[in-house]
């Protein structure tokens, strides 16, 4: 078997085990929270009778282990179940929301990844000179800004001072592609600002690291232009660390943007998860947790594979 294929198979198998462990941990975590779904739903208006009725209806009186294995059996047969709180089909709800999450993440990625690479290369080319300082200064400033502050700032600037975009970024089925793009413009801007610096700094550092090598000196001596040296000789050898940081940020764009979702009222997975954690709606929390863990594990496998493919030494191990 080809070593890369073997590695992928190994990683996927390990990933599945990890997912199982994650589901158990999430279950335990939610169980450990004070109060149960019935209490969370009824809140201040809970009476003992109503609590008992609701628990009975939602099957909360079953022992925890029974509920967990019942859920696990469902998942293995492709049935995520229904939400305890409003009885909607979880797979369907997640499907739509995951689509929105991925749409927002891809929009942000399509802009931020190339931009970060280009800026990183420019910063490396002019290391220590003013373009480097300007780029580093600006991106460090944007990453230092908490997301919600950046969000409020762009809301103010682009909906009040210059009314170009709308502050509430909800997207609905049936919206055209361009109107969807228009709707998510503000969260995309915020996310780009947040993830740009990390990727750009890593690109710059990785390239500068390679620039110390002897073969770069050779390239310089044979009279190549600096930007050509970076593009043809330094960058290909700096890909591995850059890819792992890029993937880390992509994973963040999928699973970690709940604050941005809330501020812009964007109907994606993060908000959906938080609502259901508040109500202790275990089947939904489990399902979303699984999706998030899956995305994380999947992207990490991808990063490893790319790092290996990009590195001949790892590609052909002795």
């Amino acid at each position, binding site marked *: 078997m080809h070593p890369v294929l073997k590695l992928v198979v190994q990683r996927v198998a390990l990933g599945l085990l990890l997912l199982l462990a994650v589901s158990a941990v999430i279950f335990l975590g939610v169980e450990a929270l004070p109060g149960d779904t019935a209490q969370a739903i009824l809140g201040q208006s809970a009476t003992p009778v109503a609590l008992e*009725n609701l628990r009975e209806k939602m099957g909360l009186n079953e022992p925890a282990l029974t509920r967990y294995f019942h859920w696990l059996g469902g998942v293995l047969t492709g049935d995520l179940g229904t939400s305890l709180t409003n009885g909607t089909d979880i797979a369907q709800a997640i499907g739509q929301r995951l689509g929105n999450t991925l749409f927002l993440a891809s929009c942000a990625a399509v802009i931020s990844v190339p931009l970060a690479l280009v800026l990183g290369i420019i910063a490396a080319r002019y290391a220590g000179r003013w373009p480097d300082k300007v780029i580093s200064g600006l991106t460090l400033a944007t990453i230092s800004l908490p997301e919600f502050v950046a969000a409020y700032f762009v809301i103010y600037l682009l909906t009040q001072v210059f009314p170009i975009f709308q502050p*509430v970024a909800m997207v609905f089925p049936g919206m055209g592609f361009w109107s969807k793009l228009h709707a998510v413009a503000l969260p995309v801007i915020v996310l780009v600002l947040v993830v740009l610096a990390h990727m750009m700094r890593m690109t710059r550092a990785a390239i500068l690291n390679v620039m110390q090598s002897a073969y770069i000196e050779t390239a310089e001596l044979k009279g190549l232009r600096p930007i050509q040296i970076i593009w043809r000789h330094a960058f290909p050898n700096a890909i591995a660390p850059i890819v792992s940081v890029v993937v880390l940020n992509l994973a963040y764009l999928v699973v970690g943007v709940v604050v941005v979702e809330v*501020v812009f009222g964007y109907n994606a997975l993060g908000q959906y998860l938080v609502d259901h954690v508040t109500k202790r*709606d275990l089947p939904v929390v489990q399902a979303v947790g699984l999706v998030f863990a899956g995305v994380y594990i999947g992207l990490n496998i991808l990063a490893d594979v790319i790092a290996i493919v990009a590195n001949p030494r790892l590609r052909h191990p002795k």
Partner: protein
Amino acid sequence: MTDLLDTMLTRARKGVMSRREFMARTTAMGVSAGIASALYGKVARADEPKKGGVIRGGIYGGESTNSLDPALAASPVPVITCSTWGEMLCDVTPDGGLDMRVAEEASSSPDAKVWTFKIRQGVEFHNGKTVTAEDVVATLKRHTDEKSQSGALGIVQGIAEMKAEGDKVVLTLTSGNSDLPYLLADYHLGIQPNGGFDNPTEGIGAGPYKVETFEPGVRTVFTKHANYFDSSVGHADQVEILVINDNTARTAALQSGQVHMINRVDPKISELLKGSPDVAVKQTAGRGHFVFIMHVDKAPFDNNDLRMALKLGINRQEMVDKILGGLGSRGNDFPINAAYPLFDDTIPQREYDAAAAADYYKKSGHDGSPIILRAAPGAFPGAVDAANLFAASANAAGIPLQVKLEPDDGYWTNVWNVEPFCASYWGGRAVQDQMYTTAYLSTADWNDTKFKNMAFDELLIAARAELDLAKKKADYSQMAQILRDEGGLILPMFNDFVEGVRNEIGGWYDDPNGELINGRALSRCWLT
């Protein structure tokens, strides 16, 4: 004065000032009613409703866990949603009267025990079926079912027998209740085909708008119910609720015109919003209130002198100014204010009095150990700040009050109704009887102060069946005074509804029954 008049005329022209408000303001300025009316008629084409368009509301208080089942409605978005597609037997008007809807007439036996509701002819559900007395009975049955977990269970459980007779619904109560129609105006009780037994979450009712798209926690789209029985309601072709829980985004959406109205304007920014040319801030006195509750059966709160010391040791005006930003009014330690029918405004307002509080504290013989008040940020907006202000003013009177910060998570389970002294809130009810019965009757499920007073209970039962309003008012006044002087309730403030409305919205009026015109702003307003 002419400047002021001009401003008001402009506002009337834009439709942001109702005839009622315009008349009240101008006559207060000394303009005669006749002239004011003529002025208004000249400018206010806006007062004639315009049909068509799409009205959008940006609403705080929706989650992706919400359902269309009215029995489960509890937070603002579901409540407003129910009020848009649902139609109750009757509505409560802003001045405390009844507006008959699905029922055309309500009458009772002299002891207020047997009620007859005549069902209006030709009211149609969204699915084309005609509303019958059987549907009404089925709806009430569904909410009285112990298994339904309906939020209206407490309201309808006093109905012993219900039956449909032709076009009439006859309800027999376990004991007389002269307020029954008010209770049946509750937002949970929209009439549904076969009571919603077939599919509780289908969202079919007889209201002015029917649900087109429902995405929990995101938005609800409604279209006009073509065969709605009342042409004076439901002006836009389509209305939408967008769930915007974030304060800043909600305000920005209003200012940029993405939505036409929002609820829960943050008191901190209401002044700033007033400066915006396209937006008006509407402030309506409501019945909701923020409270600190003591369990009167637990030490040290079983001592009325100590309770009195704490009641005198709170600075209510400071709370209204600092916690509500002035958008509210002082409470008087009973849960009723002028927004309720039959309110007695002669009961003296309790003031902050450090000296008297110190005297009562000394008289109580308390050992001087810290008195713990528990509060969480979610107990009510500004709860922790309010608790700290309370502690500061009480400490100044020599009362060793200490605030213990609790997490929001699990607050209503682990602290409220469990710990003897904590912060909480009430949303107010349709009538005084309902408020007292919910939380202050000895046997109440939610008696969160553990207040048990025979005289109070007897007055409450007597007032409930009383059809003579003067007597009823006297009973309520006496109850208020008992609760004020002996209860475990410290009620520093009633909060106003503060809402933002764009100028292109016409037909707005104030309604103390609930936020956004008691949840009806989308169906009562129009686009000018």
